[in-house]
């Protein structure tokens, strides 16, 4: 287990180093920021002075180590446009993204697992076909199309729910659903396949031949074993969730971090983009590590074998 985890740690570090290099290069390759900051142009001396002040006249290796040091000590720079500290721009919008994302995750897990499990246990029933049909649809429709559909139905046609912003609890319903339903579909589909796989295993037949009741077999032998591969899928689903939140925030005009990221691309505001990329990637890498750790806790084979 120790070897397994230390290998994973190493991989996470390599990934983060790669991300830091990409983020650094994106900013450096974009040229000097003066063109965007001072559209009216600069004199030769001022440009030289600015270059010196921001260490742009140093060799690229020294610039990279300086940048690494700053990133590690929490100095992420300021926006090229608004001169706000980058950290603050993201921190202000973090609560909205976190709230919507975690609500969606909770809903997805608490609905997806039972839906998938039930439809595997009741194969061929009409309810199963309907559930998997919905799951199929939820899996194929992208977030932004789904969100617009919900806005049309609940916001304008039925006039039940507000369609943009986050000013009241009702405002959360549509964005959270938009984010959660494709995940419910993904988890249900996978859970169903994993359950069916497990049902075919010899130990389930053994349990049945011992005379155990169906309910007990389902709970103790099928469900528990089917949950193991699900943990891996959860990691992928969470990465998808982070991806989807960028779109959901755009559709519902939410004050979240995804908006900052996208507008930094539009404005070519590279310091803001740099931090966004490093932070998003860091989050994904961290989640993958946690999933790996969970995996070793759940599956004794990984713990022992490594």
């Amino acid at each position, binding site marked *: 287990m120790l070897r397994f985890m230390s290998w994973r740690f190493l*991989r996470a570090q*390599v*990934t983060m180093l*790669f*991300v830091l290099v*990409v*983020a650094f290069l*994106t900013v450096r*390759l*974009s040229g000097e920021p003066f063109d965007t900051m001072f559209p009216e142009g600069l004199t030769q001396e001022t440009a030289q002075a600015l270059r010196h002040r921001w260490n742009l006249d140093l060799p690229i290796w020294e610039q990279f180590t300086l940048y690494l040091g700053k990133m590690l000590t929490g100095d992420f720079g300021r926006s090229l446009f608004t001169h706000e500290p980058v950290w603050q721009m993201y921190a202000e919008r973090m609560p909205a993204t976190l709230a919507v994302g975690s609500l969606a995750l909770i809903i997805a897990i608490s609905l997806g697992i039972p839906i998938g499990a039930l439809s595997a246990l009741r*194969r*061929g029933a009409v309810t*199963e*076909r309907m559930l*998997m049909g919905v799951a*199929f*649809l939820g*899996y*194929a*429709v*992208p*977030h*932004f*199309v789904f969100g*617009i*559909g919900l*806005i*049309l139905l609940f*916001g*304008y046609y039925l006039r039940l729910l507000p369609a943009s912003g986050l000013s009241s609890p009702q405002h959360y319903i549509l964005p959270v659903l938009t984010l959660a339903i494709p995940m419910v579909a993904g988890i249900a589909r996978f859970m*169903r*396949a994993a359950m*069916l*796989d497990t049902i075919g295993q010899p130990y389930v037949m053994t349990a049945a031949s011992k005379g155990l009741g169906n309910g007990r077999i389902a709970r103790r032998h099928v469900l528990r074993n089917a949950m193991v591969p699900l943990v891996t899928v959860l990691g992928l689903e969470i*990465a998808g969730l*982070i*991806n989807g939140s*960028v*779109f959901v925030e*755009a*559709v519902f005009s939410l004050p979240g971090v995804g908006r900052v*990221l*996208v507008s*930094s*691309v*539009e404005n*070519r505001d*590279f310091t803001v*983009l740099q931090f966004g*990329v490093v932070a*998003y*990637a860091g989050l*994904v*890498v961290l989640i*993958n590590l946690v999933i790996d750790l969970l995996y070793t806790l759940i599956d004794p084979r990984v713990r022992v074998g490594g």
Partner: protein
Amino acid sequence: MTMTLETATIPKPSRLMLAALALGLIILAGFLAPLISPHDPDAVDLLNRAAPPVGLGGSWGHALGTDQIGRDILSRCLWGIRTSFGIATLGLVFSAVLGVTLGIISGLAGAWTDRIIMTVVDVFISLPNLLLMLCGIALLGTETWVLVVLIGFVKWEGYARLVRGQVLAIREQGYIEAARVLGARNLTIALRHVLPNLASPLAVILTLSFPGVLLMEAGLSFLGVGVQPPVASLGRMIDDGRNYLVNAWWISGMPSIVIVAITLLFQIIGDAIRDRVDEWLDA
């Protein structure tokens, strides 16, 4: 393996055939857009803004209605399909070439090259594609070729993994040994003996990853950082219509329906292919 029973109502071949036929028609319509679209997709008609589609009070002149500045939505959808499929196809071909090349190198070359390439593959797998795409777009701009290159750049790792695995398996086969004994070099072996054996698994991955790539382009265009106007793009059309949802839902709605139809068809085909592959692996 898992979808066999629930899809049993329609015999499987016909389900796959129907989906493939429908998808083929959509692709053909997009390909022929310059010939068959009823209007110029960029022709503005300010007197005929947000005209409803046929069945909601519209006329056959604009079968799917017009958008907020009077452009014909049907024509724009057809051109949008053309754009989306063009970018996705070129991007996937690029990623396949990149992935196959690196996969073959990884499989045939020594331990160190292999290890380095596989580490890079691991890194790419664990990062969200959207992040890398956004970085690339910020740096290189939003020209169409940039999207193609970036799709290739973020999607290659799947091919590299597959090809490497196949190469490692094929390498042990007798005919490779024979070729080596006859004096063939690595490159000849790769091109003459390894690559032809990879054709069918590659075709499968290409089909399975197509809708994802299509949605990536549509999504970026929806966010405003993908295909730029005046080029018609389904994602961009959806974004354009967002402010008019109350009075003219069809501006966003029609391209949305097109996108959903395309991804659903791909999904059906993909599931059928997966079943076949599973059966084939079981046999």
